[in-house]
């Protein structure tokens, strides 16, 4: 199964381990990910609300390049997913926008007909690969590892027709296939506070705290993430949360692809698990054999 792959900016920097593990599990499952040639910023973050047209243009350029490959475009960052899908959607609905973008793309010898489907890797794994295939690759089940499945705000909203928009379940399902135990995590689609850390840190920290609180109270030993920003926010701000609220959280955060890789028998190093800020070593040693 062949796809174009758009890693997005964060996977080249702070979230390298996500990229590494995503490529590894995809390869194991026979998913060919060909990195998009000469991709640029997806146009996410504050860009869309400040320079909407330019943000759409950034997206459109990526989509135009992807269209030449005639394959679905796989992303792992929900912000990229939302932005690319949003531009796709708007260009489809708004003739004026489509024409403006077409003329801009033309200047770069590009054109976009609107045929690219943008998909998140999690959705591809669950819908295309499925239970049977994934389970056969599990050599080291994550038996009784209690995981809080965290989707963040953008995975299904607003374009998540593939899952329940307000209460997604895909990651829960996948974790069960790996032998892990997804815990009840009612805040699974809530804001991580990531975007607020530079503008309103107290509110952002409050949000991180409630997530950690909720995961802890429901017995989670680690949090599985599907979003680079959620991941960094939960990891990097735990210390600040503990300082501000006099708490003592020490909750490891792992990309869902890292957990898959573990179940598939890869080493911690191959999956970049040794690179996280809050070590998962103790938890994994307790639950997963021979890591």
């Amino acid at each position, binding site marked *: 199964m062949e796809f174009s792959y758009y890693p997005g900016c964060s996977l080249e920097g702070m979230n390298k381990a996500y990229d590494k593990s995503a490529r590894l599990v995809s390869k194991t499952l026979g998913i060919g990910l060909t990195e998009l040639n000469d991709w640029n910023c997806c146009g996410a973050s504050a860009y869309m609300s400040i320079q909407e047209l330019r943000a759409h243009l950034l997206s459109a350029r990526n989509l135009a390049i992807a269209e030449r490959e005639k394959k679905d475009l796989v992303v792992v960052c929900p912000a990229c997913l939302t932005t690319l899908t949003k531009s796709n959607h708007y260009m489809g609905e708004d003739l004026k926008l489509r024409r403006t973008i077409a003329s801009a793309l033309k200047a770069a010898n590009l054109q976009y007909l609107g045929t690219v489907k943008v998909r998140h890797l999690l959705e591809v794994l669950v819908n295309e690969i499925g239970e049977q295939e994934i389970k056969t690759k599990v050599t080291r089940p994550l038996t009784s590892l209690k995981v809080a499945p965290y989707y963040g705000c953008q995975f299904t909203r607003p374009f998540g027709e593939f899952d*329940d*928009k*307000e*209460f997604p379940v895909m990651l829960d399902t996948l974790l069960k296939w790996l032998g892990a135990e997804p815990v009840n995590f*009612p*805040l699974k689609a809530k804001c991580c506070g990531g975007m607020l850390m530079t503008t309103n840190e107290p509110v952002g920290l409050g949000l991180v705290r*409630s997530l950690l609180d*909720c995961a802890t109270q429901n017995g989670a030993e680690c949090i599985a993430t599907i979003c680079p920003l959620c991941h960094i926010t939960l990891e990097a701000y735990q210390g600040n949360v503990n300082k501000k609220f006099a708490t003592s959280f020490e909750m490891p955060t792992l990309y869902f692809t890292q957990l898959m890789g573990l179940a598939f028998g890869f080493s911690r190093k191959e999956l970049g698990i040794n690179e996280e800020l809050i070590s998962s070593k103790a938890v994994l040693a307790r639950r997963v054999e021979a890591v």
Partner: protein
Amino acid sequence: MAEKIGVYVCHCGTNIAQTVDCKSVVDYASGLPNVTVAREYQYMCSDPGQELIKKDIKELGLTRVVVASCSPLMHEPTFRRAVEEAGLNQFLFQMANIREQCSWISENKEMATERAKSIVGAAVKRVEFQEPLDVKKVPVNPNVLIVGGGITGIEAALQIADSGKKVYLVEKEPTIGGYMAQFDKTFPTLDCAACILTPKMVSVGQHPNIELLSYSDVTGFSGYVGNFTARIRRRAKYVEEEKCSGCGLCTEKCPVSVPSEFDCGLGKRKAIYRPFPQAVPNVPVIDRDRCLYFTKGVCKVCQKFCPRGAINFEQKETYADLQVGTAILATGFDLFDASKVKQYGYGRLPNVITSLEFERFSHASGPTGGKILLKNGQMPSNIAILHCIGSRDTNFNEYCSRVCCMYSMKIAHLAHEKTGARVYEFYIDLRAFGKGYEEFYKRILEEETIFIRGKAAEVTDVAQTSAERGKLIVVAEDTLLGIVRRIPVDMVVLSVGLEPRKDTTEIARIFSISRSQDGFFLERHPKLAPVSTASDGIFIAGACQGPKDIPDSVAQGAAAAANALSLIDRKEVTLEPTVAFIDEKSCSGCKICIGLCPYNAISFDESKEVSVVNDALCKGCGTCVAACPSGAIGQRNFTDDQLLAEVEAICA
């Protein structure tokens, strides 16, 4: 001899004239071959408009008439009648639709005018080839079939039966009564639902003119207006109705206890059961899937105790063919499945219940004897009622379910009265439109119900403060204050909307009627024919046509009854002669048409070895005409000559 054609272009006020230059269409039509006269008029359907046509037929000797106006669905009968009254056969008339198919779909006057000319030109060309047809009259069977025994069907049945006509009332459940039987009180008067419903149910059960077929459904419906045959499947109750006295001993002795559907699973029933004590007919049924005898081959306790020997485990389902002249569908609605909206936690969080479950709690003979209780057996001290669950929501149903605002306020009243709890209503807009409804709203306000304008975003059990701990927290944007509010409560009631029944597609197929975009049955005209359908003799009433409260449902039940009675009292009806006909010389006897006809209107004449169309059964759908490999089948008023002339004119 050349035909003399009259063309009449209607302005329809400004509906057509605003977008189409009618004068120019008239000038164009005047120049067409065989057109004797072309005129325009503001409202062709009005009396003076029709007079114009009649006068021209008489004075100018017109032999053909074309009216360019609205859809034939709207006014074809009007103009046909006018033509006939002036002495011309009504089928020598053709309607050109320049409203729905032209003016309403265009903003460009020049192009719309050209399009109108083309449509009129095609009609003029076609009308030349039209032939006079004779209308047949057939007698009307006075028996009426009513499907659905909720309050709507009950009202219709009683109205018709009281007039001396025979009614077959078919109900799928073991009892009539529908949703209303499950309700506690009714808005805005707060009458007890049972007190006003059960007397009517009893009347239905005892009425000499009503044959009640409960635990039954319609599996086939054929024939034509005035002369239908309905095939009814009567499911096995395993209790012989004539022998059963309704003493209830069997139910009392039955050892199997399962969740009661009537109580929304909150209470129990037995494997042999009546949904509720006032059921009509007062005869229990055996739930085959739960009965120990049927599942394990043991027990038969009910049979041992029945003093009348009414239990019959060998009973089989039977079929009955009923002859009726008209049918009224009052099949009602389904409630929206609240578990589809995950963020409100229905099925996940305890004490999040639906409005119907609240009704059962509140009902004096419900599972808690009328007490509003939490899972832990205590009374709630704070209750939130969330409006528009599954309604006015583009993710689910776009339409407003119409009844929820009012029943939510009724629930607020009952909750307040029975528990003394503080009640919050989370609403988008408050729609209290009926007689006495606004006054009821005021009363609920005065009872200190707290109205928060904002659709609830979610219900969560994740507390942020100590006051929230152990509570359900309703999160909503208060759009009047412009802030997000978190209200901790003990119980959340989801005011679920109304949906088309799951078997609506099937019923629509059986009765050959259409559905509107929202899935409910489609009425013939939204304002002027609200209980008629496009199929003559088949009427719809109540919530199967769209969400409706009890007063509106009863009004429609009565209206459908009046429509049926009016048809019956005409004693005979006319049949459209626009049916298929077979040229016996060309028919090869391949029988392809027979298998394709959706109305079983074609049979085979073995002696002549040709197919034969029954004019009365044929609905003129044209399927056989298109399918006949020998081109032996034609359709009156849709002949090849007529259609080709029309196409040729458009393409010219």
